[in-house]
């Protein structure tokens, strides 16, 4: 009897505990917290372009434009970029971007390795010469192979596109592997993707390729010890660079001493003129820079709008209004508008001055496919005039 009580007395609370606690898991909760600002600023100049949460330290600085239908995925540490493409039939292709040090091995070796991966026999050097296609990658010329392999079923053969190019100390491999038809269909997108790649300033730190004990940058075992030809080893900075502060293998692009430090602007991939400081853009702007000189200030802004955004005259008149000037007619506009060559396209340049208020506005209207880009330099008249040349150069250098 007493045992029975003891027995029940132990069991029931235990079970009750389990129930009570178990049910707490999926309940909706409400609470109050101090105000949080949910907006944030995302950097437009990434330190590690195209990286995802698996980005390792020192990722190479590279950017690209993803074609439609390509999905970003979590890649492995060796890859700088990792994407997937699927089609309606449920097939998918995998795209990878991998940088490797030096020459990345010899071409024949690489191609035969890829051939092996899709089930093809290796080829000889002579056969290789005929296999290469030319492609444009990041402004450099690249080599591409298009391999259709042998799978278990003839309908689902593996298909690989592999492109490689060397930039500085690094060889870049862009590969797409997937089902035969899907990859064939995606080849134009792949080529467009390659074209959209930008290598920006900064020497990429390089994946070690998982090659066991070889440290990063280790030359291949067979090529041991041959001193480089006349000239500093690749990537070596000038010898008198700074009072011992520069690291011996610092990237070539860094000017360590000198009067006008050039800061790489990775948005446009060009050098910012001296004195221009990048600022967070205002609504509707894509980028904004502020120039200050001896108490005077000017601002450069870049805005993209769809279509022709109302036409040049309407915009010019709007700007005239902004600096306190009267409206133009079409003829007045035609008189002051000048033409400017920007990357093969004709752009329109206007220079508007309000002498009384010492305000100047220089604007460039650049039509692009389906859009119009407006570059505006506005501020104190003398300062803006002084910056006009740099402004034009900046626009022409931007992509």
């Amino acid at each position: 009897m007493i045992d029975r009580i003891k027995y029940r007395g132990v069991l029931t609370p235990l079970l009750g505990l389990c129930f009570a606690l178990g049910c707490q898991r999926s309940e909706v909760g409400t609470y109050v917290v101090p105000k949080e600002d949910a907006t944030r600023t995302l950097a437009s100049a990434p330190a590690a372009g195209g990286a995802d949460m698996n980005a390792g330290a020192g990722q190479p600085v590279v950017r690209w434009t993803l074609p439609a239908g390509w999905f970003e995925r979590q890649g492995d540490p060796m890859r700088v970029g990792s994407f997937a493409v699927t089609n309606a039939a449920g097939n998918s292709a995998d795209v990878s971007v991998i940088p490797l040090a030096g020459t990345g091995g010899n071409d024949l070796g690489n191609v035969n390795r890829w051939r092996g991966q899709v089930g093809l026999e290796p080829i000889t050097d002579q056969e290789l010469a005929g296999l290469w296609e030319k492609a444009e990658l990041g402004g450099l010329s690249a080599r591409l192979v298009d391999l259709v392999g042998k799978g278990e079923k003839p309908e689902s053969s593996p298909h690989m596109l592999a492109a490689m190019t060397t930039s500085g100390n690094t060889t870049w491999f862009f590969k797409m592997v997937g089902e035969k038809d899907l990859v064939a269909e995606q080849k134009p997108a792949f080529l467009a993707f390659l074209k959209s790649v930008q290598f920006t300033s900064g020497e990429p730190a390089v994946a070690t390729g998982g090659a066991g004990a070889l440290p990063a940058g280790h030359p291949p075992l067979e090529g041991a010890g041959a001193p480089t030809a006349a000239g500093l080893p690749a990537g070596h900075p000038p010898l008198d660079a700074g009072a011992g502060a520069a690291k011996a293998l610092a990237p070539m692009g860094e000017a360590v001493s000198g009067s006008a430090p050039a800061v790489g602007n990775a948005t446009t991939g060009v050098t910012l003129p001296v004195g221009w400081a990048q600022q967070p853009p205002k609504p509707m702007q894509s980028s904004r820079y502020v120039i200050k000189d001896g108490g005077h200030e000017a601002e450069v802004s870049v805005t993209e709008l769809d279509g022709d955004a109302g036409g040049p005259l309407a915009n010019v008149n709007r700007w005239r209004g902004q600096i306190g000037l009267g409206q133009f007619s079409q003829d007045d506009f035609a008189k002051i508008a000048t033409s400017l060559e920007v990357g093969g396209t004709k752009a329109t340049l206007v220079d508007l001055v309000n002498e009384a208020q010492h305000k100047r506005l220089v604007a460039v209207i650049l039509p692009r496919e389906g859009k119009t880009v407006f570059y505006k330099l506005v501020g104190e008249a003398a300062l803006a005039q002084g910056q006009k040349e740099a402004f034009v150069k900046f626009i022409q250098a931007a992509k």
Partner: protein
Amino acid sequence: MIRSVFDSLASLKLTIGLLCAGTVLVFAGTLAQVDMGLYAAQNAYFRSLLVYWGPQGATWKIPILPGGYLVGSLMVLNLTASLIKTFEFSRAHFGLMLSHGGVILLLIGQLATDMLAVESHMRLGQGRPSNYSENGRDNELVLVDITDPKQDKVVSIPEGRLAQGGRITDSGMPFTLRVLEYQRNSTVGFQMGGGGGSVTNGVAAFLRFQKEAPVTKLEARDIPAAAIEVLNGEKSVGAWWVSGWVEEAQLAQSIANQAGPAVKRLLEQPQTFQSGGRTWRIALRPMRFYKPFSLELVKFTHKKYSGTEIPKDFSSRVRLRRPDTGESREVLIYMNNPLRYAGETFYQSGYDENDPSITILQVVRNPGWLTPYLACGLVSVGLVYHFIMHLLNFTALRRKR
């Protein structure tokens, strides 16, 4: 009848059976971790009543092993029953009684820990105070009333509820939610102008989310996405895609890096809507645990052994601020030296490889933390006592020879 059930519960044969079953279960669970990942295997083998198995691709499963909860609770019952049955105050038995009592306490304590403990982490960047910690594995859908300039009212819906689908109502929300789609793990891609489908608000205008298989590696985690429709009665206020891809700064940054400035700007803004004269924000994010105090990283030190990548020591100097009591002091948190405050413990857990000004603290709330210590003490004392008694008997016997 009760007597015979009780007797079976108290039987030594049951004990042996449970111990053997436990051995097999832990072994199987350890092997399963290779394929399923630590977390999934834990849930399947140890946090369950039964372990199921079904052939690849089939929809049916059969139970093949008792799960951790079943073995554990049977052990507690068995031990308790046998203790009650054989209870007597004698020197010979004292040691064993004590040990077994300790084991009961250990098992119950671990069960309580499993149910009650909450683990989360805090990512602190230098100079940016934070008053919440996050759980990387569980996410929540939040509807935040941001109308009030001084505070936000948060309605938090656990991810598990989203997985169930259907409609969600709560007294905290004047509207109903309908789950259009839920993805435990997702990938994201660009589809300018909308990816087709009915949802086109906010980020859905240029992002498309696709289902992906859940991760199994230890270091990786799932990034969920869901399409949620907000209904006022039967009228639709709008529908949005919410996801960790959009909500977490690093992931949003990686999308922004590849898109134009227009996309970047849209990603910088939260997704909001109006309902009943109030402004609400909707988001899917790692589950947050807010605290009445904030921690701010003052300095993070990270030393490695010279010439290697092996961490030598890392420590975080943080400032603790509590607005309602005015408390403000600096604390040093480093390996094996956590901060214990307000019922939670903050451990130096890790760091960000890419950003040396960030520290990661592990935050643990575990009301049952004392039980293993007490249990260990009881069991050790009991076993040592028993062992010594045995040894004394043994040597006395040998001396007699």
